[in-house]
């Protein structure tokens, strides 16, 4: 009798605990995608430079580029990246992880065997599937954030979708072909 009662009491108590009373705290729950916003300046009037936030995250900066002057080349875009964030951008906490100093950069198409033509649909005809970026400094010693800055900036300069693979070559060896993620 006593045992049955104890068991029943225990069961009911745990049920009540399970149900909880009122509104309980919860874990972090994913709920749908992010917010997608239009960015100014518009695609045709900007260059996208990928800098780094204070916490190492990637922060893209869209700088105005007059479309009347024609498309900005990848090399020029990378030059702008290497020159670092502007005063205004710095004020917002935007930084670069790339080394100061030798700012020479050269962009060439990479070996075609890296990928096969026509494989990726929707890409504008004539777009290169991979580029080789050669810098005046060593790329092997760069951290992941710095590498991502170069890769993403180069990829998006080459292709609005930013799907082009980039091979970084520096003063001391090169890195394997990488896509912006």
């Amino acid at each position, binding site marked *: 009798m006593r045992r049955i009662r104890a068991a029943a009491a225990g069961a009911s108590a745990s049920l009540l605990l399970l149900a909880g009373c009122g509104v309980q705290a919860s874990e972090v729950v994913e709920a*749908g995608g992010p917010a997608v*916003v239009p960015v100014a300046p518009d695609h045709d009037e900007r260059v996208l430079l990928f800098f780094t936030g204070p916490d190492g995250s990637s922060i*893209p900066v869209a700088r105005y580029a007059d479309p009347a002057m024609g498309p900005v080349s990848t090399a020029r875009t990378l030059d702008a990246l290497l020159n670092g964030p502007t005063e205004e951008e710095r004020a917002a906490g935007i930084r670069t992880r790339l080394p100061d100093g030798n700012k020479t950069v050269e962009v060439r198409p990479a070996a075609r065997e890296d990928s096969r033509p026509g494989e990726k649909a929707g890409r504008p005809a004539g777009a290169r599937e991979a580029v080789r970026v050669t810098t005046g400094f060593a790329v092997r010693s760069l951290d992941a954030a710095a590498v991502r800055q170069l890769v993403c900036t180069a990829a998006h300069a080459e292709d609005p979708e930013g799907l082009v693979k980039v091979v970084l070559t520096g003063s001391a060896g090169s890195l394997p072909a990488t896509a912006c993620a």
Partner: protein
Amino acid sequence: MVSGLRTRLVLAFLLVAAVGCGTTAALTYREARNAILEQAQDTAVSSFRDQIQELHVNLPPNNEQMQGMVRGLARQGKPRNWWVYVEYGSVRLSSGTNPTSTVITPALRRQARATPHGSFQRVVKNGEPYLTMVMPVVFKTAQTGTGGQTERPTGLTFYAVMRLTDEQANVDAMVVAARDGALPALAIALVPALLAARSVLRPVRDLRQAARSLGRGRLDTRIPVKGGGELSELARTFNESTAALERSVDELQRAEARARRFASDVSHELRTPLAGMLAVTELLDEDAAGLDPDTAAAVRLISSETDKLAVLVEDLMEISRFDARAAELNTDEVDAAETIRRTLQSRHWTDPARIVLDLPDGIRARLDPRRFDVVIANLVGNALRHGRPPVTVALRTETRPPAPRAAEGAADGTPDTPGDGSTHWLVTEVADRGPGIPADVLPHVFDRFYKADQARTRSEGSGLGLAITLENVRLHGGTVRAANGPDGGAVFVVEIPLTTSEVTA
């Protein structure tokens, strides 16, 4: 520990009801609460996302721009007001006074950075529930409208914090509703619980009554056995046991009756030859003188033993009549002192050196003179035989307050009740100056054939004298006690209720 079968049954029933109610209520409550919260959360998150997607963002946005965004978002708070926070690089801005929220947890922040997804978390702070949401902002890198797929984070992250007080109120209301529903349900459950307990306990109550009736000596008590189950098993066992008990008690009673009958029959059968023998003992006594000495001695022995045998048989007959409840009380109203004096006189116990009397005259009592004579003669004879003279015989009356002594003293007595309920008693005391009665003998003095001295196998009496005395006093509705007096010597006290005839015509 709760005692009582009824209480336990009711409690067990209520417990089952409570667990049932509670489980149902708890499950329903949980589902309802989760539904309420999910509704609120999903609405909040998606409306937060929708509102952010309305924005146009410069990269990087300047502080005024961001401030404008959070204010705008806070104003459009749907379904209700929220605080909006924005993080960009090292910039922290909010729609309120503090640039950062104390409610938003590091876990939510980490989640926002790790995956490009909207997320939420319920946080309870200071007893208040909040919904915290995070919404990372991305943009499409390709020309809008060209079907480009690639999205890159803008570095902007919006947070919103919303009170869940309404939801809390709803949930609380549900708890109250569940409680208010469950408690009356439990109260209502008490009724079937009591009914069930009653029906379960009825056999138990029957059993109790039967056991009580059995205790009162009604051995023919039986319990009706209904249906099956443990209780009817119990009833059956009870019935079988009582039947067995009744049989053995019957057997015992029959055996006892047979034994008594036998004693009575034996005495009866002895009486007839004894009557013949007793009629000729005198003849033997007279002629013994003329016989040779041995024959004379033998003849005298036969004569005297015949006398004793006659007394013994008479006493046995008397006891048999008491046992058979055939003894009658033929009362007459007599002077108590006179009656005692006559008893002593008829037995020649009149020597003042041996018998001291304290017999006040004028006490009239309703007695059976023959039986009272036997009582006094037995007690005085006993005192003279076993004690030392002088033997004191004292008579007095006592008036006692109604309740305790009288009730215990006389079960059958109907003593005079002079209005106030008190009773009158005739008290006769017979005391001797002997060594008194040993303590181990005292409880047995009224037993039949009890011999205080085991070595003395035959006393002068039949061994039934005091037993007959006790029965005679009881027949009068009185009591007789044996004790030792303060100066040694045995004291026998006979108490008989005084009942005088109410009319003296």
